[in-house]
């Protein structure tokens, strides 16, 4: 047997190989172009509506106000959608579509497959997020030519950090469920609705800071476009004698980054452990 001609491939190289071929698969799949189409539709609508109606919230103030109203309102949505689209079935798909039967019984660690797929999904989503940012930037420069506000650059960086955390969460879900559509749907519902409801209930009703929520932390994406940065806690009193108070929280930037970082780590570990234990049974 020609053992000399075979070299042992390291796990780092395996991560790269898995990432490369998964990215190729993403890049050619219909899903990538559906995602691009969604971005084109959102930016197309924004561009024409803003161009036609010139709403003061967009063009009435300064460049920051414009980026806040456009990018700030939609960036999180784009992040959630691409994390769910590319990550939501990354692992469950290997089981449901049986592609794992081709890839897993090879001299490769499951963790290398997981990380490689994660990188591929992150790369595909980063392209989508980047296209959206460029489209917003083109609009912004049209109305407010000259300079790009630094806060927009920060906001993009935060959106990307949110993408990293959300991708980790979507992957964990894709390891948890066997069905692709369920794991995608769960990621979307959780990130678009459930966490938002939890944020609102926690702050407005219970009056506690939702420090445990990923979407609360993602608030820094739009908050950073407000100058000055919103106060950490805003209390409004209402009713007769001002007996009712409503609290509203804004994560500070270090706090927001920390929460997103914790989500990334916890979800990455959880997803990996689930995938390692998951069985290929039909």
């Amino acid at each position, binding site marked *: *047997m*020609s*053992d000399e*001609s*075979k*070299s*042992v*491939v390291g796990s780092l*190289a*395996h991560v790269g*190989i*898995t990432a490369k*071929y*998964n990215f*190729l*698969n993403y890049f*050619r*799949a219909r899903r990538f172009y559906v995602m691009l189409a969604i971005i084109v539709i959102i930016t197309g609508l924004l561009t024409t509506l803003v161009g036609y109606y010139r709403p003061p919230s967009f063009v009435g103030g300064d460049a920051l106000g414009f980026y806040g109203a456009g990018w700030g309102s939609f960036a999180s949505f784009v992040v959630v959608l691409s994390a769910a689209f590319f990550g939501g079935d990354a692992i469950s798909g290997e089981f449901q*579509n*049986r*592609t*794992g*039967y*081709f*890839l*897993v*019984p*090879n*001299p*490769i*660690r499951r963790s290398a497959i997981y990380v490689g797929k994660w990188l591929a999904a992150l790369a595909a989503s980063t392209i989508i997020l980047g296209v959206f940012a460029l489209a917003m930037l083109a609009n912004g420069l049209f109305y407010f030519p000259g300079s790009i506000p630094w806060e927009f650059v920060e906001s993009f960086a935060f959106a990307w950090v949110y993408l990293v955390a959300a991708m980790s969460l979507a992957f964990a879900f894709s390891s948890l469920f066997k069905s692709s559509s369920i794991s995608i749907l769960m990621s979307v519902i959780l990130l678009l609705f459930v966490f938002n409801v939890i944020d609102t209930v926690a702050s407005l009703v219970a009056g506690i800071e939702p420090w445990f929520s990923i979407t609360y932390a993602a608030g820094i994406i739009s908050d950073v476009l407000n100058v000055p940065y919103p106060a950490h806690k805003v209390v409004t009193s209402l009713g007769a004698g001002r007996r009712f108070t409503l609290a509203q929280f804004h994560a500070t930037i270090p706090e927001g980054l920390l929460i997103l970082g914790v989500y990334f780590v916890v979800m990455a570990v959880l997803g990996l452990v689930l995938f390692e*234990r998951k*069985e*290929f*049974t*039909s």
Partner: protein
Amino acid sequence: MAPSIETRQLTKSYGQFTALSGLDLNIQGTKCVGFLGPNGAGKTTTMKILTGLIRATEGTALINGVDVVKDKKAAMASCTTIIETPEIYPSLTPKEALSMLCEIRGVPRQERSKTIDEVLARVKMSEWADKKVGGFSKGMKQRVNVASTLLSDPEVIILDEPSSGLDPRGMSEVRDIVMSLKDRLVFMSSHLLAEVTEVCQEVAMIDHGKLLVYDTIENVTAKFAGGGGAVEVSFAGDVDEPLRARVSKLPGVTSTTKSNDRHLIVKFDPAAVTQDKLLESVAGLKAGALTFTRASGLEDAYLSLIKETL
């Protein structure tokens, strides 16, 4: 060191149900071993444990002496497999999918494209090498899967019903490929006893997750086919109970078993009746007998070992 596949007290439970119970199997050397057993016997389960797709509840599985759970990377380094018709990323071409495996398995860069062209030619898929797998038929995909097991010069090849989904020519081509795999250990599950007889030197039979026998085909046939003969008779219509009873009463017949709706396995005692006399008396029933074939030794052994589940 000779290639090997070993299971020690391998057990797999799904809740209350035991799919495999204490399977001990030790296969050493370069040869082809058929893995036989009725539906649900635990063949796929054994192979999935061996290749790290699922984990045993108890016991260990080793390939070339390496525990698959402790070090899957080393265990699978010179083992390739097809289990339950795998799927390939649909937007990749066979060339790309196979080069992914070449890279993972450490086939040197300069050899990759030559190796891939060779294995695709062997499964007659050369003209589809650059088309996306997504549009392939089941059998075409299975051919690419067969090609994938030939990459990287494996010492051990584990095949779970490799000819499933293939057309008749495809089946015979896979048989030829398996027979050409010299200097390797091939472990292949199959329901096609003729295929197993043709390509394998040894067989392991399991039922209800337990090993019944592991030996050379000659020994298994000699031990379990019984001194008696067996023929398979096919009928124009369904074999009903009265017809089975009539055949059973023919002189020299020792037992009858329905192998499917229109087929009857008839065992007879050669001392009491010769095969030609039996044929005459079956035809004499005027019950619509169409064909009359001698069951192969392996089939006979299989039927006598696994009759309880039929």
